[in-house]
């Protein structure tokens, strides 16, 4: 059955360089889960509400260390260029979170004894 369209095309297009020798079957996949494994820091809820619907948290967490101004510009670009429906009131909280996650990441591996 699957070859029928290809054979039909061959008949219609006799004179082409070569018969179509390819058949196309439907394709479907299921992607793995994408758990929002965001560090538990202030602003986490704002990030989940405004950022992770469109992309995995890894996109934020894997960036190199960058200044606050750069994070502000990235969040701004998400809203202005990529039209992310970000609650503008939540932007400072989101940027706070990104800065905090970055700072916690580069903190010493062993916390000083208190």
């Amino acid at each position, binding site marked *: 059955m699957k070859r029928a*369209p290809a054979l039909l*095309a061959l008949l219609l297009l006799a004179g082409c360089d070569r*018969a179509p020798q390819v058949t196309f079957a439907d394709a*479907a996949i299921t992607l793995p889960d*994408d758990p929002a494994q965001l560090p538990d820091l202030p602003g986490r809820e704002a990030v989940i509400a405004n950022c992770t619907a469109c992309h995995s948290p890894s996109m934020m967490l894997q960036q190199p260390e*960058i200044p606050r101004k750069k994070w502000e510009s990235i969040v701004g670009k998400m809203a202005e260029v990529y039209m992310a429906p970000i609650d503008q009131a939540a932007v400072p909280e989101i940027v706070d979170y990104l800065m905090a996650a970055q700072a916690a990441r580069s903190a010493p591996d062993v916390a000083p004894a208190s």
Partner: protein
Amino acid sequence: MSEGRLTRRALIAGVGTTALAAPVLGQKLVDLGLPGGPSLRPTTPTFPGKGEMIVQRVNAPVLETPMSVFREGVITPNDRFFVRWNWPMPTSVKAGEHRVAVGGAVKQAVSLTLDEIAAAGEHVSVVAINQCAGNGRGLSQPRVTGTQWGNGAMGCAKWTGVRLKDVLAKAGVAAGATRVRFAGLDVPLVDGAPQFIKSIPMNIAMRDDVLVAWGMNDEPLSILHGFPLRIVVPGWFSTYWVKMLSTIEVLRGEDDSYYVAKTYRVPTGPVTPEDKDFPTVPITTMPPRAFITSHADGGVVAKGKPLVLEGIAMGGDAALERVDLVGDGWEVPCTLGPDEGPYAFRRWSVTLPQVSGDLADIGVRAKNVTGAVQPDQLAWNPSGYARNVIERITLRAK
């Protein structure tokens, strides 16, 4: 760079960051060697049709090929080939319902079925490297933002399809056409966001080896690699190899769409992180690159014994001419392996008669037949595009 060989530093860093950068699917971790970090990434075999891949992002999928995959052969197996989507793509495509619209500056706009595409002309195969424009971005110094790739956003496959020019002929290119633009089924989630559409100049579109492809290493393209059709532009960066092709649009004039006019652009000359408002042009062709695949940075080699080094190289948009092993003030020509065509990886090897001590900061330098050669210093740019600095490693003699 050194997957499977977690360093003490990496392990310590891993412990320190577990609670923060928790791996998405995370059992195994790989250290990409990104300067300043974060450098650890989870790896997983759980993506459909894929083997063990480095997870840069689950949604939309961005998966990197572990460097160990490049140790053998010049063809990258489909299940280890890197994956990169700008926007989430459909996870189901009905072949019988799929159409490719060919329109714009054409004589007669048409909507083609997959069988009509397959019947548009001679079936052609080309072995070509598909490399992300940002491959190696994470190794940039100073660091830049974006997908933090190691060097595994590349692969080489045999692509099979029909020539783009034969598909264009179904509609007939009209007078005044300048470029051909492609769009796929991956569309933004929100209204008004820029769709990932890309265009190439007409003279490139009419090349005999620029394809509308359905085959990847003699298998149908998978969903993750752009089922049912993708554009193949040998020698050009992957950004133009639009996946899940659904629209071919012939343009008159320039392409002012976002991913051509605003991003995927490189400076016309050297720039520093302090520079602003410099002229840029769209990134297009690939420069030569080479990699040592037989040994990873920090590896141990036998002192007093001969040493065989092996790897892969590419000419970029022209055939590879030579590969040299380079150290501090010395260089040794390498022997090239079988030639699979100008756009394919080519293996190289070199034997050092005797290891007398540590091999510090050695690298391999590829040169192509146009004279383009890998530089000693990174041509830094703010998007980390087109990295082709000589990649260096240090081997310890013991």
